[in-house]
């Protein structure tokens, strides 16, 4: 029996899923965007090269553990040592998460759907956080897996690994919120990259100046505060407070929860700035 089927317009009567689904889908989409998945090959170049550079020390570390039978790099210091790479990743990729939607005015296409500004911004922050966290967590986990397999004498450094993973998450949230807040101020990607990197350089270039001069003036206690100007050392200070790890800075940090309070305040400020920025963008 022959039949010609109707391939005309079909109505959709399947399910229409709620906010959880759309927000999740947007998060995944943005995350793919960070790594250039589903985009031309050259969009993948920067994120994947940086990710590869991030894993290199972990592999070298495993090699040291296997061949020389001694502990490799510390988990708690990984983010601080690799901070330049993480910062470049943030500067290069944060603008790709927010700038195109502003520049090419894609935002109205989202807002004409059941997606609210809050969900949109939330998804972007989560995506950037996950991307940064992956950048940190993958090498840490690779290194930890290596340590377990190699079975060095003594117990594995499980507590340090877990601590590093948790503080890594905090660092990722802080960097993501801040990076996106700055990058979203301009629809121009180049200016966004410049702004993020400028702010990071500003922070990190001031630290040694402050620290060494204060130290030479004999003011050790004040000198320790200098480290908190840089987000990587700031979060390391939280790690020292919570997990009792060795500080990755000369002379340690000011004690107590103050660093944690600063991180929380900074995250809140960045999220508020993002919310304000997008409320304005939406009303246009």
């Amino acid at each position, binding site marked *: 029996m022959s039949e010609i089927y109707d391939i*005309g*317009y*079909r*109505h*959709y009567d*399947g*399910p*229409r*899923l*709620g906010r959880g*689904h*759309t927000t999740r*889908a*947007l998060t995944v*989409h943005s995350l793919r965007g960070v790594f250039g998945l*589903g*985009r*031309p090959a050259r*969009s993948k170049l920067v994120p994947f090269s940086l990710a590869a550079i991030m894993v290199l020390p972990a592999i070298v570390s495993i090699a040291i553990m296997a061949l020389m039978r001694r502990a490799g790099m510390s988990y708690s210091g990984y983010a601080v040592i690799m901070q330049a790479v993480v910062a470049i990743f943030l500067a290069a990729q944060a603008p790709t998460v927010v700038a*195109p*939607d502003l520049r*090419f*005015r*894609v935002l*109205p*296409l*989202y*807002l*004409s*759907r*059941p*997606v*609210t500004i809050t969900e949109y911004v939330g998804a972007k922050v989560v995506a950037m956080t996950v991307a940064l966290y992956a950048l940190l967590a993958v090498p840490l986990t690779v290194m930890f897996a290596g340590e377990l397999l190699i079975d060095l004498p003594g117990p594995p450094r499980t507590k340090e690994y877990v601590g590093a993973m948790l503080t890594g998450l905090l660092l990722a949230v802080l960097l993501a919120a801040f990076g996106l807040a700055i990058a979203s101020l301009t629809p121009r990607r180049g200016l966004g990259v410049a702004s993020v990197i400028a702010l990071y350089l500003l922070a990190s270039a001031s630290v040694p100046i402050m620290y060494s001069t204060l130290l030479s003036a004999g003011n050790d206690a004040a000198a320790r505060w200098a480290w908190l100007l840089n987000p990587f050392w700031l979060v390391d200070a939280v790690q020292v407070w919570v997990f009792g790890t060795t500080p990755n800075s000369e002379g340690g940090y000011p004690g107590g929860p103050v660093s944690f309070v600063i991180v929380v305040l900074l995250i809140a400020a960045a999220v508020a700035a993002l919310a304000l920025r997008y409320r304005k963008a*939406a*009303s246009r």
Partner: protein
Amino acid sequence: MHILDTEGLTKRFPTVTALDGLTVTTGPGVTGLVGANGAGKSTLIKILLGLLPPTAGGARVLGLDVTTRGADIRRLVGYMPEHECLPPDVSATELVVHLARMSGLPRTAARERAADVLRHVGLAEERYRPIGGYSTGMKQRVKLAQALVHDPKLILLDEPTNGLDPRGRDEMLALIRRIGAEFGISVLVTSHLLGELERVCDHVIVIDAGRLLRSSAIGEFTQTTRSVTVEVDEGTQALADRLVELGHGVAPHGRMLLVEVSGPDTLDAIRDATADLGLCLIRLERGRQRIEDVFREAAGV
């Protein structure tokens, strides 16, 4: 049920009043919305999508109140903006699938519908290439596809033919007509050209300075012009003179003549006059009223 209805809808901004007591209803089918540039049209669309609260009055879309049911409205409505809104570095497929999911469609359904809809709007192999390389016409199709992909009950098309050349325009208008008739989706379409809307709309709303100028079925619209346009290639002046001689109202309209129809014999008079003068009768059409004429009447020009 009305597709949309507004009552005394007013929106004031610090410097301008975009909508001023607009009361209008539309039924299913294709509805045209025309109006002078300014805040009016885009403001109305934003209010209808529940993205902007009205200053006074109210509006309902598909029976849902715009101030309280915005999210539900946006689930059932598709929107094609006037401005460019496409990221250049993703493909049409990637974008449309993504936006389908943003409307709540599960992944599989989003893929299938995106493929279907892109086919319906006439994007073939191009759909896998980045949008940056598309022509204006193709971009307009992508914009239309993303508005259709979640199978809305109503779509709002803002200047869908803007920037298109005649062929592109014809194809876009044919698509809109199909959406309204064949797909069974109600359409609200804005345009600067009434002639264009005449070809696709069942109903036309004209607003000016935020106020309703006219809202009526397209039939009434065309009925209101009691004139025909006549085109005869050469000898336009001779024909005009002859018709004036016979007591008909004639006005030049570009290359053509606008002849007032006083009864059935007017048409016969035109026929006979062209035949007598040995002219080519290229066009004899019911007054193709243009939007500018409506504004002219309103301005009392």
